[in-house]
């Protein structure tokens, strides 16, 4: 259950749809990567589809899984697990690609499963505590608790910002270097 400052118990009708009385509410699609759960703004999501083989792009960072044909548009697919520094996803047909629109671009995000749609009021959002790990976390826009689970909300625009991608590349290369 989400606990809020107002102490209101949301009407959890079997699911975790929460309707807040005050302030603005946003809806998020949540998905999992391993044990972790993340959410993206539902307004950015264009489509959810099962993983299909992609075409590899040469000389791109490891988390860039290549491109696929989405009804005629060439869409790059990012492996979020790899992007978060947790290694490549062994993609199967059971894996899911979430197509999101970031500014003018369409990008796909490879995740393990899509779990839910949650409605979150502004006042339920918690700040992301500063992590001491050497990881780029600006793209986390907040944390929210849903049925006892923590969901980290992602800001896709920050996630795919060129600088943060460069940062990601640097991290990826560092990781490769470590392995050798």
């Amino acid at each position, binding site marked *: 259950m989400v606990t809020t400052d107002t102490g209101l118990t949301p009407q959890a009708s079997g699911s975790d749809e929460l309707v807040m009385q005050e302030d603005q509410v946003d809806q998020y699609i949540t998905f999992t990567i391993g044990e972790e759960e993340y959410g993206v703004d539902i307004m950015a999501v264009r489509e959810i589809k099962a993983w299909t083989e992609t*075409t590899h792009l040469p000389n791109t960072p490891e988390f860039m899984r290549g491109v*696929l*044909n989405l009804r005629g548009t060439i869409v790059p697919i990012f492996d979020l697990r790899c992007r978060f520094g947790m290694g490549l996803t062994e993609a199967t047909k059971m894996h899911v690609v979430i197509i999101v629109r970031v500014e003018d671009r369409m990008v796909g995000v490879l995740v393990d499963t899509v779990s839910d749609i949650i409605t979150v009021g502004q006042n339920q959002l918690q700040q992301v505590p500063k992590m001491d790990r050497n990881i780029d976390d600006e793209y986390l826009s907040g944390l929210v608790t849903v049925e006892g689970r923590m969901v980290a909300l992602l800001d896709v625009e920050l996630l795919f910002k060129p600088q943060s991608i460069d940062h990601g590349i640097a991290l990826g290369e560092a990781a490769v270097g470590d392995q050798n």
Partner: protein
Amino acid sequence: MPQDFNLEQFKVTYFEECHELLASAEEQLTLLQQELGNVDVEVLHAIFRCVHSIKGGAGAFNYTDLIDFTHSFETLLDKLREGEIPISMPLVDVLFEATDILSSLVQRAQDNQESDPEVWKKTKQKLESYLKEGGVKKTSPSDHRDGIADYDLTPEEEEEQGWGLFIDLEEDEPASELPPEPLENFKPTYKIKFVPEPHLLRFANEPLLLARELSSLGKYVAHADLSRLDDLDQINPDEAYLSWIFELETDASKGAIEEVFEFVVDDCELVIEKIGGEAVTNTATTKEAQGVKAQKPEPRTARASRIRKEVELHTPTQPAPPQAAQLPDTAEDRPPVTETLNDGSKSLLKQQAKISSIRVELDRVDRLVNMVGELVISQAMLRQQVENLIPEDSHVMAQGFEDLSAHTRELQESVMAIRMQPVKSVFARIPRMVRELSARLGKKVDLITQGEMTEVDKTVIEQLMDPLTHMIRNSLDHGIETQEERAKSGKPERAAIKLSAEHRSGRIQIEVSDDGKGINRQRIVEKAVQKGLLSSDHDLSDEEIDNLIFAPGFSTADEVSDVSGRGVGMDVVRRNIVSLGGRISVFSTPGEGTRFLMSLPLTLAVLDGMIIRCGQEKYIIPLTSVIESIHPIAEELQPLVNGAMMVSMRGQYIRIVNLYKLFNIKGAVTDAAQGLVVIVETERYGHVGILVDELLGQQQVVIKSLEENYDPIDGVAAATILGNGKVALILDVDGLADMEHGSDRHRTFANLEQQVLLTGEKAHGHD
């Protein structure tokens, strides 16, 4: 405000229109200049209309500078076409200048910039000085020189400007002079007398069809004249005995009516006269036995006496009664009683009557082109799947697919045809440039253009202007000799530059040739040696020497002129052409001239590609760059000390581009002797060989942008979608050669790692 919004929309159309008008004005001016001695007044009319239309729109949007300038311009043009001012060469120059100024004023208005009055006022004064010289006092509002503030429009003029916005006005006639028509609901009536010659029917003409055609213009009453009809036993069925008088109520112009009879006009007696739009009584009549069914409004009272027979077929519903009182007494509401065809303010009606083309946003066309591309891909996918079906099911489907693919091919061609434009839009700008440059260089040059209606995709047209300009300049500056030189070598005084376009084997071929002195090979070689592009003991063929002019930074002009000779020209030309998927070559005969030949794809939306495999990946190499492919044997492969691999082919050493290495592809053939080397032509490195595993085939592919959703990738030009629905990358051979030859920045971390693994040492030149 909605009005504002609408106005903006109109502005977009207006400016589009302006650019076309300016281009057309310039074209006509060139024509004018060519036949200076024998000026066709139609040309002047055409220029006048262009300027006038621009003025009209400027008035509507209140671009005061534009109005002011166009007004002077127009007044001068008006005097010219009236013959009040003689046309002279300097005057034509001023007209050209004025067109330039007009063009910049339009541009500034479009960019919402203030124009600098100094610039255009000077030209305006020039225009006006001609007006004075012509001894003709300027008429009407032009008396306010600078003042647009007091540019008061008469209501008629405003009206005209509003309506005339995007229309070529035939006459600058104030609409108010036209007799106002009192009745809104009545259209002008024409009396059309149609007396076929007896032989009319033999040419497969059918009066009934004409009558039907007429009915599309408006309501009419037909009266058949049977007086020529013989007795039944005398009738020759091949002859036309009947004649008719039609009374037609229509908005259409006389021209539109004439068009109906266009094909029979030589075989009949045809009289079309206007009889006004007065109220008519309510009778319904139909014409005679041939059964032309037409809904007829009332016949008029005065009627040819020969009419013998009227059959009543329809009783039309009550026609609208006269409503004279309701009509505002403004001129534009009604077509005048007089002949309307050439009446400017009514050309709106005329245009509505025969619209043969529509203006469509390019975006929409592009979307259509994309969708058709999708269709082609989906079809290829389906087809591939059908091939896996059991035979008895598949052959029926295969038949269906044959039909489907025929249709899609046709659809694709038709859609591509929408974007096709004649190269005229590019060629039209050349004469002007030749004229100006030849004047500046003191050379007398005739430009001959051919095949300007040759069509090519709009995307290609847009890219064509720069290279073409460069080449023409080059010919003028370097190719054509000075007057004295020409006289010395016994050539005609006037040099010729020929510009031609034609379709050849699915591509467009553009040729620029001159009859100048040709390429000075000795100087080229000297220059190349001097610049270190060539060693002094070269053994290049003449043709190879000629092609050195395309080398970057190469210019042989003794002095850098402002025309050309900055040493970037031909290099840029070649790069532009190549980036369009085209190629360019030069042929030169010393003393006789130079010929540049460009060959370009008709469209940038599809290309013919060779599908190759490297490891598990499939790539497309554009067929235009492929020269040949070879299976080298081990003896032909020579490693260089810097790690590069060369293959010798017929005595020529060609550098191998290791695609697997550049793209970090696992499981690919790494030994050129085991794989296949595709020899491709690059812009900067000449021939290079791309090492691939095997060739999979050749296919036309739809080009998809990779950059739309991702960043550019070195060595990849674009992407496409194969029959299995998967994305395949189209290789950029120049980019690959760059990477292979190239600098460290092209090498990524991963590549270096792999090279260490493969060779045990970092390749030279990469550290």
